[in-house]
C-alpha cells in the first residue's frame, strides 16, 4: 500500500515553467476496495434471515425515539452498493490525480458500519443498542485518549514516551490506594496525577539526564511498574482489601438540558466528571501546544533543540516540564480505571491500553485533536464487541476482541505510513 508518487514535467523547458509535481495517494482506493470485498464476502458467505432492530433511546428518556426495524439483508446489500460506488469514485479520482475527499471517507465508513451491523443483528430478539454503543465507545476511549494526549505532548517536546502503559497502571494503582484510604475520589484523582508525573520524572531522569535510549527506558519502565504494582497488590492490597482497595467512584453527573438531547444526550452527557474533563482536555491541550508561548517553545525543543537552545530556551528544563505535565495528563486516564470504571485495583488492569494510546499518537500524526479522534476510533472498535454480543452476532467473540488491534495495525501501516515525527523526537540533546 505504498503511496504512488507521480512525477511529471509539464513542459520540456524546465527553466521557464515550474515543474508540475502531483502526489496522489493510492491508499484510499486500496483501503476502500479491500473493505468492500470484505463486506461482500461476508454477505455472500453467510447470508442471514430476518430483521435488525436499532434502539435509539430508553423508555425513561424525555424524548423517546422509536426503535427502527429494517430488513437486514436488503439494507446490507444497499450499503454494499454504496461502498462499491464510493470505491469506484475513489479510483476515478485517483486516475485523474485528485485526492479522495474526506467526506467520501466518512460516508464510506458509515455505510460499512450500517451494512455490517444490520447483517450482524439480523433475526436477533434483542435490539441493537445504538446509544450504549456510543457511550461505551467514549468510556473505553478515556484512558487511551488521555494517554494519547500525554504521549503527543511528550513527543512534541522530543521525548518518545513508550511508558504510557506504565503511567496508566501506576496512576490507577495510586488512585485506588489513596481513594480508598480517604474515601474521596478527588484525593484519588490528585494522587493519580502525581503518580503519572512521578513515572514521567523517572523517564526524564534516564532519558534527559542520563541520555539512555528512550524506547528502552520506556519498555523497561512498563515492566517495572507492572512488577511493582502486582507485587504490592498481592502483598499489601489483597490482605487489606477493605481499607486499601475499595474506592468511592465518581458519580454520574447528567448535565441538565443537554443530557435530554436524543441519542447524543444519554450517550455523551450522562457521564462522570473524568469524561467531561476529557472533553475539555482535548481543546485545552491543542490550545496550549499551538497558541501559547509555552507550546511554541515546547515544539521548538522537539523539532530543533539546537536552534531553540541558541535563542535561549532551556532545552532540558522544557523537556522535563513537558514530560511532567504529560505524565499528569496520562494520570487522568489511569484514574479512570479505579475511580470510574470499577472501584478496585487489579493486577495489570490496563491490559495494553497504553500501547494503543501510543499507536493513537502516531495515527493522529502527533496532533492532539487527531490523536483524540484515533483514540475514539479504538474505543469504538472495542465497544463494538459488547454491542455485537448483545444481539448474538455470528462473528466469534475473539475476532471482535481482536478488532481494535487489527484496526490499529491497518491504521498505522496503511493509512498513516511514513508520517513525520517531530524531528528531534527520541534524540537526547547534548549541549555543546
Amino acid at each position, binding site marked *: 500500500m*505504498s503511496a504512488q508518487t507521480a512525477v511529471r514535467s509539464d513542459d520540456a523547458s524546465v527553466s521557464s515553467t515550474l515543474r508540475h509535481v502531483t502526489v496522489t495517494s493510492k491508499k484510499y482506493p486500496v483501503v476502500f476496495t479491500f473493505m468492500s470485498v470484505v463486506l461482500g464476502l461476508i454477505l455472500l458467505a453467510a447470508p442471514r434471515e430476518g430483521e435488525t432492530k436499532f434502539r435509539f433511546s430508553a423508555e425513561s428518556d424525555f424524548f423517546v425515539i422509536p426503535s427502527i426495524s429494517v430488513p437486514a439483508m436488503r439494507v446490507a446489500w444497499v450499503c454494499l452498493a454504496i461502498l462499491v460506488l464510493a470505491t469506484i469514485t475513489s479510483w476515478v479520482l485517483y486516475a485523474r490525480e485528485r485526492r479522495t475527499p474526506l467526506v467520501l471517507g466518512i460516508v464510506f465508513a458509515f455505510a460499512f458500519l450500517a451494512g455490517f451491523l444490520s447483517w450482524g443483528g439480523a433475526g436477533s430478539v434483542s435490539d441493537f443498542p445504538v446509544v450504549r454503543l456510543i457511550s461505551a465507545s467514549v468510556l473505553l476511549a478515556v484512558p487511551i485518549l488521555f494517554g494519547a494526549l500525554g504521549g503527543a505532548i511528550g513527543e512534541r517536546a522530543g521525548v518518545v514516551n513508550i511508558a504510557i502503559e506504565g503511567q496508566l497502571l501506576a496512576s490507577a494503582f495510586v488512585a485506588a490506594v489513596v481513594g480508598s484510604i480517604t474515601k474521596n475520589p478527588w484525593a484519588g484523582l490528585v494522587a493519580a496525577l502525581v503518580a503519572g508525573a512521578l513515572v514521567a520524572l523517572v523517564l526524564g531522569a534516564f532519558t534527559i539526564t*542520563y541520555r539512555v535510549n528512550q524506547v528502552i527506558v520506556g519498555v523497561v519502565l512498563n515492566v517495572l511498574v507492572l*512488577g511493582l504494582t502486582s507485587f504490592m497488590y498481592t502483598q499489601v492490597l489483597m490482605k487489606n482489601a477493605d481499607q486499601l482497595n475499595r474506592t468511592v467512584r465518581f458519580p454520574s453527573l447528567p448535565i441538565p438540558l443537554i443530557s435530554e438531547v436524543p441519542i447524543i444526550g444519554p450517550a455523551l452527557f450522562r457521564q462522570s466528571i473524568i469524561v467531561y474533563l476529557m472533553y475539555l482536555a482535548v481543546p485545552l491541550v491543542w490550545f496550549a501546544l499551538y497558541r501559547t508561548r509555552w507550546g511554541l517553545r515546547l515544539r521548538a525543543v522537539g523539532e530543533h533543540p539546537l536552534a531553540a537552545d541558541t535563542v535561549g530556551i532551556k532545552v532540558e528544563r522544557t523537556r522535563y516540564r513537558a514530560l511532567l505535565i504529560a505524565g499528569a495528563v496520562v494520570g487522568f486516564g489511569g484514574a479512570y480505571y479505579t475511580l470510574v470504571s470499577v472501584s478496585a485495583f487489579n493486577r495489570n488492569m490496563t491490559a495494553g491500553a497504553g500501547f494503543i494510546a501510543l499507536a493513537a499518537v502516531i495515527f493522529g500524526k502527533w496532533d492532539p485533536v487527531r490523536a483524540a479522534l484515533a483514540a475514539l476510533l479504538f474505543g469504538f472498535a472495542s465497544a463494538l464487541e459488547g454491542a455485537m454480543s448483545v444481539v448474538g452476532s455470528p462473528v466469534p467473540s475473539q475476532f471482535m476482541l481482536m478488532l481494535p488491534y487489527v484496526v490499529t495495525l491497518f491504521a498505522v501501516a496503511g493509512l498513516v505510513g511514513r*508520517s513525520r515525527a517531530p524531528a528531534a523526537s527520541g*534524540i537526547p540533546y547534548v549541549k555543546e
Partner: protein
Amino acid sequence: MSAPEDRPAVPAESPAAEDVARKRTEEPENRWSVAFREIVGGSWGVSVGAVILAIIAGSIMIVATDEGVRAASGYFFGRPGDLLAAAGGAISDAYSALFRGAVWDYRADSFAESIRPLMVSLNYATPLIGSGLGLAVGFRAGLFNIGGQGQMIFAAIGAGWIGFALQLPWPLHMLLAMVVGILAGALWAGIAGLLKALTGAHEVITTIMLNHTAYYLLFFLLATPGLLQAPGSANPKTPAMLESAQMPKLLGSGYHLHLGFLFALAAVVFTWWLMERSKLGLTFRAVGENPHAARVAGIDVSRTTVWVMVVSGALVGLAGVTQVLGTSVTGFSTDVDAGMGFDAITVALLGRSSPLGVLAAAILFGGFRAGGATMQAAEGIPIEIVTVIQSLIVLFIAAPPLVRAILRLPKPGQTPRRKAAQPAKEVAA
C-alpha cells in the same frame, strides 16, 4: 511511526560504542591492566553492580512489606534491635529461598536432589535463550522486536498442530514440528518486517498489535472444536503432544531439562556465526549502525529489514517450539508464551545483544524464575518481585554513570568517555 532514520538505532547504545572506543584507544597499554579495568570499571563491572543494586532494591521491598518487620517497627524506639533482626531475617530467608530454588538445594538429602534446582533454572532459561537471541539480532540491526509473545504463540500453533495431528516416527516428527514452528514464528515476525519495509510503520507498534492479534487467534483456535482444541474437552487447551514429537529429557525422567536446551545452545553458536562471520550478518550490523551509510554501500535496507525480522522471529520461534515440544508436552493453552517474549527484551539488553551475553543473562533470569517460584512457595513473597529486580537491572545497566556514581566504581579513562558521548552529539547537531 517516523521514518526509521530519524531516530537513533535502538541497539546503538552507548556502552557498546564505549567498549569499541576504549579498545581502540587503549591498545598500546599493558594488557593486564586493561583487563582489570575492563572488569572493574568497564561494562562488566557495571553489569555486576547493576545486579547488586537491583537485589538491594528487592531487599527494601521485602522488608517494607514483611509482616514481622511491620510489627517490630511499632516499637522501634523501644527496642531497635528487634526491627533490624526482623528485617535481616526476612531478607536472608527470602534470598536463601531464592538460592535454594535456583542453584543448589542445600537442604536436600542427595546430590541428585540438590542439583535439581539448577536443572529447573536451565529449563526456564531454554526459551529465554532463543527469544533473547531473536531480540538481540533485531537490536544489532536497529529493530526493536517487541513481538516475542506473538511469535512464540505462532510457533506454538505450528509446532503444536504438527505435534499432535500427524503420525510420524520419532526424530522425523520432532524435527518437522520444529521446522514448522520456527517457520511460523519467522512468518509472524516477517509481517512486521514487511509492513516496515513497505509502509514505514514502526515495528514497535506493529509487533505489539501482532501480539494481541496472535493471542486472540490462538484463543479462537483453542475455543473452537475441530481446530486446536483437545477432542472431547470444553477447555481451551490442546491435546498432549505425541511421544514421537516430544523432545526427550536429557538426564532421565527425574529432571525436566530436555533436548531443547541443546538446541538453544546450538542457536547461540549459530547466532554468533551469523552475526560475526556471515555476509548476511554483516549487512544486518551495517544497517543497524547506520542505515544511510548502508544504503550508500549498496545494501537494500528494506529487504534487510524483512530478513532481520524473519531471522529474529525464527529464533523466537525456537523458544516457542521448545516450550511446546519440551516443557509443556501435555498440551498448551493461551499462556503458552509465559511472558517470555517480554522477558526476552530484558535478557537481550542485559546480554548486550551478544550471543554469549544473552546465554548468561538467560541463565540468570531462568534462575530468577525458578528461585522466585520457590520464594513464593516457601516465604510467601509474590513472584512479581523477580520482575521488579529484572527491570531494575536493565535500567541500571542502561545508565552506567548512575551505577558508577552509586557504587563509586572507578571511571574508565577520560578519553574514552568523551568519545562515547560523541555519537549522540552528532545526532543532535
